[in-house]
């Protein structure tokens, strides 16, 4: 019994930094759940990844101006991510280019610029910090930032939910009624960037997307409604955060990869044993046909 306690509760009871990390995971999970689910539903799973990379030069500029300061780096990252998202959206609306092609172009420019800036004005440790984050180093300031971002995105999601669902399912429907449908898409992109920035302090720009996408994609093997997908994805993201933290504490692993790998394990289990459309279901159906 004490062993179980030592493993599952002990680290959080004994160490304030672990408690903060756990609260950070809760905040990130609440924001990442809906963002990830809608990214999957809009067929933008990979675009989340490109946006995470485009945050980098902004964070680097913030770093150059005011050192390792979270507000400056977050603001810079937010502006850079937003610029890439909006310019890509604009280009794909004005030209015949597909949105993912525009995203790919602008994110590569942004990423290369970011790496150049970090390596000429910082050092490789800073670069590692931005790319991979450090959830165990989350302080009160960044915790507040994450909580604020989560609160804002949950409220905004509640406000745009109906329109976002309608627009994802049948884009021409709202355009016929209102003459525009782009507003929901733009608001959604802003939320994606916001949550990306909230996640990068804790998990780094690369890993933050993992906590968004893996639970959301895995959830589709279990449930089949938008609200239940969001609920399950959020729950899984938080559990992955918790388990990842315990593992990283016990085995002295870096916390970001431990959390994302836990989420990855959930995805793989869902892929094989999920209730809907999983490999197991396909296998069972085939044997059913044979008999």
């Amino acid at each position: 019994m004490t062993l179980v306690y030592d493993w599952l509760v002990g680290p959080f009871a004994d160490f304030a930094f672990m408690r903060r990390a756990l609260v950070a995971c809760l905040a990130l999970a609440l924001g990442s759940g809906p963002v990830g689910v809608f990214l999957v539903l809009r067929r933008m799973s990979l675009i989340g990844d490109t946006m995470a990379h485009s945050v980098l030069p902004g964070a680097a500029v913030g770093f150059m101006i005011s050192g390792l300061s979270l507000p400056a780096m977050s603001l810079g990252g937010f502006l850079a991510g937003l610029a890439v998202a909006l310019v890509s959206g604009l280009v794909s609306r004005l030209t015949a280019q597909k949105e993912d092609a525009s995203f790919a172009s602008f994110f590569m420019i942004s990423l290369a610029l970011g790496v150049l800036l970090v390596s000429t004005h910082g050092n490789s440790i800073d670069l590692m910090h931005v790319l991979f984050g450090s959830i165990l180093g989350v302080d009160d300031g960044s915790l507040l930032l994450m909580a604020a971002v989560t609160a804002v995105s949950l409220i905004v999601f509640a406000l745009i939910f109906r329109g976002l669902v309608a627009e994802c399912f049948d884009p021409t429907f709202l355009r016929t009624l209102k003459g525009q449908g782009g507003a929901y898409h733009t608001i959604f992109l802003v939320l994606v960037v916001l949550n990306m920035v909230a996640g990068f302090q804790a998990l780094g720009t690369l890993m933050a997307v993992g906590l968004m996408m893996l639970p959301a994609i895995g959830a589709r093997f279990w449930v089949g409604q938008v609200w239940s997908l969001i609920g399950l994805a959020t729950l899984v993201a938080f559990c992955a955060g918790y388990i990842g933290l315990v593992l990283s504490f016990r085995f002295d692993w870096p916390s970001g990869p431990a959390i994302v790998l836990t989420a990855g394990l959930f995805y793989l289990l869902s892929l094989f044993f999920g209730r809907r459309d999983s490999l197991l279901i396909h296998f069972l159906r085939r044997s059913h046909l044979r008999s």
Partner: protein
Amino acid sequence: MQPMIALQDLTLAYDRHPAVHHLSGAFAKGSLTAVIGPNGAGKSSLLQALAGLKKPAEGKMLFDGIARHDVSYLPQYQAIDETFPISVLDVIQMGHWHRVGPFRAINKALHQQSHAALSSVGLDGFADRAFGSLSVGQRQRVLFARLMVADSRLILLDEPFTAIDTRTTKDLLRLVERWHGEGRTIIAVLHDFEQVRRHFPQALLMARELVAWGATPTVLTSENLLAARAMSEAWDVDADICRGAA
């Protein structure tokens, strides 16, 4: 005849290549019109323009007393994401959008309307099914139920019966006739001439330019159809030159 939509020298462009040339005429209030013509004749472009999704490159469309929410447009099937996790009832409830907007609740009366629409397309008991799990014909029935809930005065249908089974087509045609009886204005892009002759009193035959427009028997003559085909074969050579310019 009271015109609901008057087209004056309407020209629509796609990538700066004209898709519809100098189209003039009027859709009467309460009319039921089939838009026909060879592939690439600009039929879908015309419907998109009427739905407000495409701006005229030249000319005008004059709507008499119709606001944006009075128009319903059913695009060709591919426009919808069939894998989206949404229930049949929720798809139909989208038809209430102009009443409830993005925030207001859908009350009991509106709920009942949705269920009534569902049973009038013959899908009683399908409310909670996932839209993506339905057959192509059943999906089209659901979208017709959504049109019914939207209660629009102008209904635009782009090839509504393509790849749809005969029984569903028959049921949905009956709905179209019912809407016509209720005084709604309906414009449908169609391919099946027999269907047009039997169910659509008005026809508009086009091949980028207007070939004929009026009562269906006077439009669907062999001379007109031949002319339309000849015009369609002539395009490819110099499609980007506006020869019809006055």
